C-alpha cells in the first residue's frame, strides 16, 4: 500500500511540500506573534518614521545634516560614511597588502621575515580588538585641541581628528571637470589607436607622454586659463576646536587604520599565493624567449598571478565592507551605529530598521560579487573549459 513511497519523484514532492508547510507554519506563527507583540508594546510599524525629524546630531556628515533633518537623511549620512570608510580602507589595504605580499617573497631575509611577522601578528588578533586598540592609543597619544600638532600650519592633528584645508570650487571650476573627463576619453582613444597600430604594423610606441598630456596637462591648462577658479579654506582654531576646512575624526582614522592593517594581511597572503602559483617553468620559458625581466614580470608572471589572486582579494574587500560595521564600537557614524543604533533606539521599530540595514549590506555585497564575476569572466583562460 505504501509502495508509492518508493517512487523518488513522489518522495521528493512529499518532502518538499512538508518542508514548505513547516516553514509557512513557523513563519505564520512568528508573524502572528510579531503583530501581537507590536500592538502590545505600542510599537508603530511602516516606514513613516523615515520622514520624521531625527532630533540628534551626527559628528560626521558628507551631505547636509542637522538635528532637524529626517531619519531618512540620517540613514543616507550613515550609508555614505560606511562607503567612505570602506573605500579608504580598501585603497590602503591594497597598498599595504601588495607591498607586504611582495616583501614576503623577497630574497632579502630580513624583509621577508618582517613581512611574515606582520601577517602573523595582525591576522591573529580580532579586528574589533584592533579597532579598540588604535582608538584607545590615539586618544592617549594625541594632544588636546589647544596643543594640536601642526604640519606647516596647514594640517592639524589632535585627539579629535585631523584638520586640513578644503578646496572650494568657484564658478568656473565646472569647466575644469569637463576638461578632465574629455581628457579621460581622449586617453582611452589614444590607447586604442596605438594598440591598433601595434597590432597592424608591429611598431610599438611609448604612449605615456600622450596620456599625461590629455589627463593632466589639458585640465591644468583649462584651470589656469580660467584664472584658477578654486581656493582653499583653512581650518582655524576657534575657542575649543578647529572650524572650517575639512576634517576626519579620530574614530574614522582609527577605524580605517585597523581595517586596512587587518585586511592587508589577507590581501598579502592572496598575492603571495598568486605569485607562487605560477609555475617556475613559465618564468624560465619567458626568459629563454628573450623577454627582459620587466617584460617577464608584466606579460607572463603578473597576468597569471592575478588570475589566482584577484578573487580572494575581492572577497576580502567584501569582508572589509562588512567589518566596517564594527564602527558602532567606537562611535564612528556609519550605517550601523547611526541607523541600527541611534535611530533604532529613538524609534524602536526594530524590524524595519534591521531589515533596511541588512538590505543595504546585501546590496553592497551583491554589487561586489557582480564585479568579481565580471573580472573573472574577463580574466578566464580563453579556450579552457569551453
Amino acid at each position, binding site marked *: 500500500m505504501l509502495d508509492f513511497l518508493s517512487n523518488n519523484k513522489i518522495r521528493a514532492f512529499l518532502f518538499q511540500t512538508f518542508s514548505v508547510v513547516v516553514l509557512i507554519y513557523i513563519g505564520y506563527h512568528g*508573524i502572528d506573534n510579531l503583530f501581537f507583540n507590536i500592538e502590545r508594546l505600542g510599537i508603530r510599524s511602516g516606514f513613516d518614521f523615515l520622514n520624521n525629524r531625527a532630533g540628534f546630531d551626527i559628528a560626521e556628515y558628507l551631505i547636509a545634516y542637522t538635528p532637524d533633518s529626517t531619519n531618512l537623511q540620517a540613514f543616507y549620512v550613515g550609508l555614505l560614511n560606511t562607503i567612505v570608510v570602506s573605500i579608504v580602507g580598501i585603497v590602503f589595504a591594497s597598498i599595504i597588502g601588495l607591498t607586504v605580499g611582495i616583501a614576503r617573497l623577497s630574497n632579502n*631575509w630580513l624583509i621577508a621575515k618582517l613581512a611574515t611577522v606582520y601577517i602573523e601578528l595582525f*591576522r591573529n588578533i580580532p579586528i*574589533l580588538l584592533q579597532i579598540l586598540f588604535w582608538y584607545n592609543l590615539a586618544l592617549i597619544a594625541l594632544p588636546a585641541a589647544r596643543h594640536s600638532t601642526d604640519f606647516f600650519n596647514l594640517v592639524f592633528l589632535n585627539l579629535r581628528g585631523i584638520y586640513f584645508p578644503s578646496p572650494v570650487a568657484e564658478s568656473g571650476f565646472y569647466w575644469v571637470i569637463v576638461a578632465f573627463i574629455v581628457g579621460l576619453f581622449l586617453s582611452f582613444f589614444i590607447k586604442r589607436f596605438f594598440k591598433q597600430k601595434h597590432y597592424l604594423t608591429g611598431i610599438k610606441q611609448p604612449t605615456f607622454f600622450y596620456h599625461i598630456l590629455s589627463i593632466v596637462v589639458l585640465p591644468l591648462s583649462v584651470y589656469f586659463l580660467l584664472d584658477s577658479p578654486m581656493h582653499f579654506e583653512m581650518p582655524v582654531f576657534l575657542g575649543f576646536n578647529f572650524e572650517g576646512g575639512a576634517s576626519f575624526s579620530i574614530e574614522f582614522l582609527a577605524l580605517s587604520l585597523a581595517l586596512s592593517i587587518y585586511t592587508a594581511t589577507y590581501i598579502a597572503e592572496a598575492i603571495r599565493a598568486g605569485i607562487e602559483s605560477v609555475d617556475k617553468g613559465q618564468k624560465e620559458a619567458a626568459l629563454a624567449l628573450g623577454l627582459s625581466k620587466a617584460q617577464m614580470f608584466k606579460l607572463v608572471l603578473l597576468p597569471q598571478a592575478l588570475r589566482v589572486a584577484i578573487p580572494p582579494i575581492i572577497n576580502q574587500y567584501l569582508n572589509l565592507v562588512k567589518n566596517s560595521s*564594527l564602527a558602532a564600537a567606537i562611535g564612528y557614524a556609519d550605517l550601523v551605529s547611526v541607523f541600527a543604533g541611534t535611530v533604532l533606539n529613538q524609534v524602536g521599530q526594530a524590524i524595519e530598521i534591521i531589515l533596511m540595514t541588512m538590505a543595504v549590506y546585501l546590496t553592497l555585497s551583491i554589487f561586489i560579487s557582480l564585479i568579481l564575476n565580471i573580472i573573472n569572466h574577463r580574466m578566464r583562460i580563453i579556450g579552457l573549459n569551453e
Partner: protein
Amino acid sequence: MSTFKFQSSKQPPKLQMGVIDWTMKNLFSSKLNIALSFGAFYLLYLIIPPLLDWLIFSADFTQKSNAECTKEAACWSFIRAKIDFFMYGLYPSEYYWRVNLLLLITLIFMLIAIVLKNHIYKNRGILLMLSIYPFIAFLLLYGSETFAIKIIQTHQWGGLMLTLVVASVGIVASFPIGVFLALGRQSKMKIIKVLSISYIEFIRGIPLITILFMASVMLPLFFTEGVNLDKLIRALIGITLFQSAYIAEIIRGGLQAIPKGQYEAADALGLSFTQKMALIILPQAIKASIPNLVGASIALFKDTTLVLIIGIFDMLAIAELATSDPQWLGRKTEGLVFVAIVTWIILYSMSRYSKKLELRFKR
C-alpha cells in the same frame, strides 16, 4: 712498476655558510637589498626598543597600585589584580571551581579521544562523550535546581570563559545545520535548493553584527508573550545561524571534491539516499573539508568578540569594563594588550594546526 698510491680525498665543498657569508647573501646581495636592509633595521630600531621598554623593562610586574605605577610604561599589576575578572567575568568566585572542573573534564575527554585513536570503540566512545558533554557543561556552568546545583545566571558569565563558551557552541551547533544546508544546496529538489541557496547567500552577504542586532532586538518580537529567551541564548542563536552558512559552503566544497563514481557506486549497491550520504559521501566530504573547517572555527573565534556590542561581556568587553574601576583608570591599553596576547596565542596555535592539517591532507 707503478704502485697505487693512496691519495687523501679533497675537502668537501663547504655546505655551511659562515655568518658573514650568510649576511652578504641574505641581506646585502644587491644595492636595493642593502638599502632595504638598512631601512628595515632603522624601522626595527624605531619600534622595538620603545615597545620592549613599555612592555617589559620599565613595566611593573609587582603588586603596586595604579598611582605607584608610572604613566610611561605598562602596569601589569592591573592584570594581576583583575585576572579573575578577565577569566570568569562576574561569575561568583566561590564557584570558580565549577568552571575549572569543566575545563578539566574537557581536557580528560580530549585525552581519551586521543588514546582511543585506533581502538575499535573509538567512534562509539567519542559519540558517547559528545552526547554527555553538553549536559555536564550545562550543569556545571549554569546549574540546576533538581540536582541542587546553584544556578548562575548567564549575565554573570564573562571573560575568557564566555568567549570559549560562545565559540564552541557556535562551532558545534552550526555544524549539523551547515551539513544539511550543503546537502540542500546540492539537492535535485528545486524548492529545497532555492531555499538553501537563498539562506546561505543572504547570511553571507550581511555582517555578523546586523545578525546579532537582529537576535537581540528583533527576535524577541517573534516569540509568544511571556517566552523570554536569555540574551546569551539569543546571541548564540544568531552566531549559529551565521556560522552555519559558512560551514555549508565549506562542506559543499568537500562534496564537490568527491568523484562522481562514489555516488554511482553507492547507487549501484542499492543504498538508500540516507545510507549513501551517511556511509559513503559525507565521511569523505567532511574529511576533505577539515582544514577549512578549522579555518572557519578560527574566523568564528575572532568574531565572538562582536558580542560585546550587544552587551555580553566576553574577554574584550571585560578589558573595557575593568578600567572603569576608579582604582585603575587609564589602564585600558594594558587590558587590551593582555587580551590581544591571549587571543593571539589561541588563534596562532589554531592556525598552525590548520596549516599542519592542510599539509597532511595534501599528501
